[in-house]
């Protein structure tokens, strides 16, 4: 039979591990890993895998559900220019290249040299068991700007990438399942303030 289980190891996803070496394994599973903070989150979406991949693969779509992403523009050769909101009204930018592209299954990216926030990651699309839609897993590796202090500041402004990734995945699910993104706002003005 196949490989035996390493003693003390379980089947839980590496992103949930208490052990540093398993987190390292997850990091090494990325093509061209960039950054030292790992965030991995999975959401189940009641839609077919290919439809979800297609929407995500058109990277220009990402600002529709990624609250902090102002825009993503193709600059040729599978490279994209990202402009992202940062705390205190600033923006950060980088060029990221697609490092992996398996239609209907996975998209990987890594930022190039000179990125304001070095980052890399992958989005996996897998069939959920029992025909219950698709598991979308976002694995993101990044260097928080300004190190630990920067991370705390970003968290204060709710612009911390791990928080954002979790909320962005929920918005992606809402958009794909319901065709819109839920808001508690009453007026267009309130909605615009929330997006700021």
């Amino acid at each position: 039979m196949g490989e035996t289980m390493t003693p003390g190891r379980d089947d839980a996803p590496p992103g949930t591990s208490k052990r540093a070496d398993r987190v390292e394994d997850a990091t090494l599973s990325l093509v061209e890993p960039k950054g030292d903070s790992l965030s991995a989150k999975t959401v189940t979406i009641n839609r077919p895998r290919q439809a979800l991949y297609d929407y995500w693969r058109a990277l220009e779509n990402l600002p529709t559900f990624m609250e902090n992403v102002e825009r993503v523009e193709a600059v040729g050769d599978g490279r994209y220019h990202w402009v992202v909101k940062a705390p205190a009204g600033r923006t950060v930018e980088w060029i990221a290249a697609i490092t992996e592209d398996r239609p209907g299954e996975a998209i990987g990216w890594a930022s190039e040299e000179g990125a304001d926030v070095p980052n890399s990651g992958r989005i996996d699309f897998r069939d959920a068991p029992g025909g219950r839609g698709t598991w979308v897993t976002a694995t993101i590796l990044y260097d928080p700007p300004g190190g630990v202090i920067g991370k705390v500041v970003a968290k204060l402004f709710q612009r911390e990438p791990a928080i954002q990734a979790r909320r962005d995945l929920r918005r992606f699910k809402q958009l794909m399942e319901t065709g819109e993104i839920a808001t508690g706002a009453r007026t267009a003005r309130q909605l615009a303030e929330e997006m700021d």
Partner: protein
Amino acid sequence: MRALTWHGKHDVRVETVDDPEILNPRDAIIRITSTAICGSDLHLYDGYIPTMQSGDILGHEFMGEVVETGPKSTLQKGQRVVVPFTISCGSCFHCSKHQYSACDNGLPADNQDIAQAAYGQPMSGLFGYSHMTGGYAGGQAEYVRVPFSDVGPIVIPDGIDDDKVLFLSDILPTGWMAAENAEIEPGDTVAVWGCGPVGLFCVQSAFLMGAERVIAIDHFPRRLELARRFGAETINYEESRTYDALMEITGGIGPDACIDAVGLEAHGFFADNVWDQIKVSTFTGTDRTHSIRQAILACRKGGRVSMPAVYGGFVDKFPLGAFMEKGLTLKTGQTHVQHYMPALLNAIMEGKIDTTFLISHRMPLEQAAEGYRLFHDKQNEVTKIVLKPGMDLAQTA
């Protein structure tokens, strides 16, 4: 528009605020014709519910006329609709199983963090009930924005009074689902703790589902009188020892099904940080926190416990041993309103269910703040206040 806004403990005001607008394709705007004050609104009024913000518009039991629709709404201008208090998308896994109050997408993404931390997974959104349930403006107003208007609101045929159908928005489906969760069998004796609106609808529903006897437990004489009117026997827990009384009137067996319609009476409430405050003001000195414990102890062996009562956090001294040893079944949950509305509307139209008996007061929206005070101070006399935004002040005299 005019709206009832929250500003702090015992401070609600009718103010002029911006009209709601269509923000998403599936939205509709409803002009409110009737909107009730719920017992759970009193917990907002008493300042127990965290994540409230000054200026929040309250109200989650309402109906009215469609005045504007988004491009993906299936409603038409001029239709009269009752709106469920739960905001559910109709497209996620849970909605497809008709578990509407467990909808994945009703809460805005940012608001899901608190619910996820408290409950493990986020629940549906609610109208007018703090920011942890989505921060949605409620219906104690002239107008309201209704998200997912293609799956939530139910269209009411012309010629049926608001008062007959308004309670489809929350308390009638809640009472019905509680009775359904009690899995009543012919010949059963059903005990109902709490004769507020939900408890009274439990009594009605239990008889319709074939209960032989229903025993209603409360301490407000007027509420017990209403329960008696529907054929229930009553226990006033200030006059009699509830457990002993239940044992005696069931020949020592205990009720086959027990429904706890007391709880905290608060939708989506959980805050541990106000737990002590709640304990002091709600529990101590009354029997009320004991309702779920008492239900478990009184219930016959192998019986069913149904809990429409809202518990948000942790309960001390839950009798897990009795629950296990007697092999009880417990069913509970926020109401899947959208699932129950069509059948209950039919039951109302066929005259099988009448909910108008509950309304003790009708007031113009302008008097909403006075309504809260009245409801808060006189729970025996006030069974239900319905606010009518279109009502002339002179009509109340």
